[in-house]
């Protein structure tokens, strides 16, 4: 995932790399994900969320749909 100043520069990047534009998220959403994912990473109990947990995490910050489904195999046609 990459950082951009604006949606306009995202579009320029996608055109330059000949890739379709995918979902954008805000800095606030990304910070929430970073905290959920990594706040306990330096502890013995830390682990990567399982697929079902990931879907719940994404939904909790407003990210839903096949693109955010770790088990999806239909994202190509759904985007």
């Amino acid at each position, binding site marked *: *995932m990459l950082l*951009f100043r604006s949606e306009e520069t995202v579009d320029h990047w996608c055109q330059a790399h000949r890739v379709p534009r*995918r*979902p*954008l998220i805000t800095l606030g959403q990304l910070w929430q994900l970073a905290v959920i994912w990594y706040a306990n990473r330096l502890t013995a109990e*830390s*682990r990567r969320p399982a697929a079902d947990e990931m879907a719940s995490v994404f939904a909790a910050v407003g990210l839903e749909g096949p693109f955010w489904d770790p088990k999806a195999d239909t994202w190509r046609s759904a985007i």
Partner: protein
Amino acid sequence: MSLDLDTTVKLAIYTTIAETAAAPTAVAVAQRIGAAPQQVEAAFTRLYEKRLLVPEPGDPSRIRMAPPFSGVPTAFPVEARGKRYYANCVWDALGIPAALHEDAVIPAADAFTGERLTLEVKAGRAVPQECVIHFAVPAARWWEDIIYT
């Protein structure tokens, strides 16, 4: 509490990175925890299977990624605790202050224009900044090529 080898190795890796801002080799981890380097390399492989670690391609004794930390310099430096850490992506760049529970400055840039785009974490929050984050790869495929993702 007695920890299993994989957990002991994981903690040694993350403690070393947090302390030094550099990823340890299998030999360094082995010295730190009093194990054989071969045992630690095997633990690296198991931690990779748990998606907690990415060994260096072609050299399983070295660490490319211990998310959110990168074992090599990247376009996402993170300044915290008076050190310069490196993250694997912009998500991980925020993940480093989240993991360290520290303020941080992230001197990043717009991926297309190169315009400087500094992010900051202060008092447990990301300081608002005019920016967006683009995910090019869907979640189901992130670990197909995690270094690219």
